[in-house]
């Protein structure tokens, strides 16, 4: 059910990209899709346990000695660290691509004086 809601957020972004005419709206649609995908990947690693799950950060009592042995309780309760690490890089890449898209939008606005992509296509022939 929660996966389906996340997929619905993705579809809203895709609808925005396909249907809207404004270029900034298209950028917004791409952002919504990006949020949905990141959220879905992190959701895959969550664990519903009897006690509360913990973040994959060994701190305090989880570290048994200085050599780095972690307690079995931590291993059995921690959520998946792998999607979190990959999503972490994906978010910063999203910011870089957002800046690039906004730069392209500003450039097109300076050239044609509008954000309307149908008018831009008509002018270009």
């Amino acid at each position, binding site marked *: 059910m929660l996966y389906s809601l996340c997929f619905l957020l993705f579809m809203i972004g895709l609808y925005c990209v396909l249907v809207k005419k404004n270029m900034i709206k298209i950028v917004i649609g791409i952002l919504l899709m990006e949020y949905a995908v990141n959220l879905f990947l992190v959701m895959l690693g969550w664990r519903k346990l009897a006690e509360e799950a913990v973040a994959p950060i060994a701190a305090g009592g989880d570290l048994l*000695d200085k050599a780095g042995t972690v307690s079995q309780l931590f291993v059995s309760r921690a959520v998946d660290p792998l999607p979190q690490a990959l999503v972490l890089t994906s978010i*910063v890449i999203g*910011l870089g691509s957002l800046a690039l898209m906004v730069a392209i939008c*500003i450039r097109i606005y300076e050239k044609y004086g509008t954000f309307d992509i149908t008018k831009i296509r008509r002018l270009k022939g």
Partner: protein
Amino acid sequence: MKGMTIIVKTIASWIKVLVFLFGIYIILFGHLTPGGGFAGGVILAGSYILLLLAFGKEYAEENLPISLASKLDCIAAFLFIALALCGFIYGAGFFFYNFIQQKFLVEYESAGELVSAGAIPLYNIFIGIKVAASLFLVTLVLSAFRLESQE
């Protein structure tokens, strides 16, 4: 742009140091607590973008010139690769080998302390500098273009 009102300028001049310090903390403790190079780098860039928004483009450019920012960007990326090559040379012969941890810190046994994890804090620092310089450059370029087009 002349910047914002005197209230915003005063508050910004107070908290810019705190934001910068918080970014450094997030980067340095990235291997122990939540955070790391990405989040800390964005916070460092945010402290300069606060100056850019509050005081205007000229003041921000005095604090961190564009040439210095681009040099920092390139140097941090270069150091990142150089540290990875050090693992190739001193270590087991593959890229990104964590040679400081595997060769020098194995007997030291310092998991959970600030000086631990070998090359990971160094990677964090380089990534933080790189992300901060890149994002500051992008925002500066975007805002500068808007100013030129209005004149």
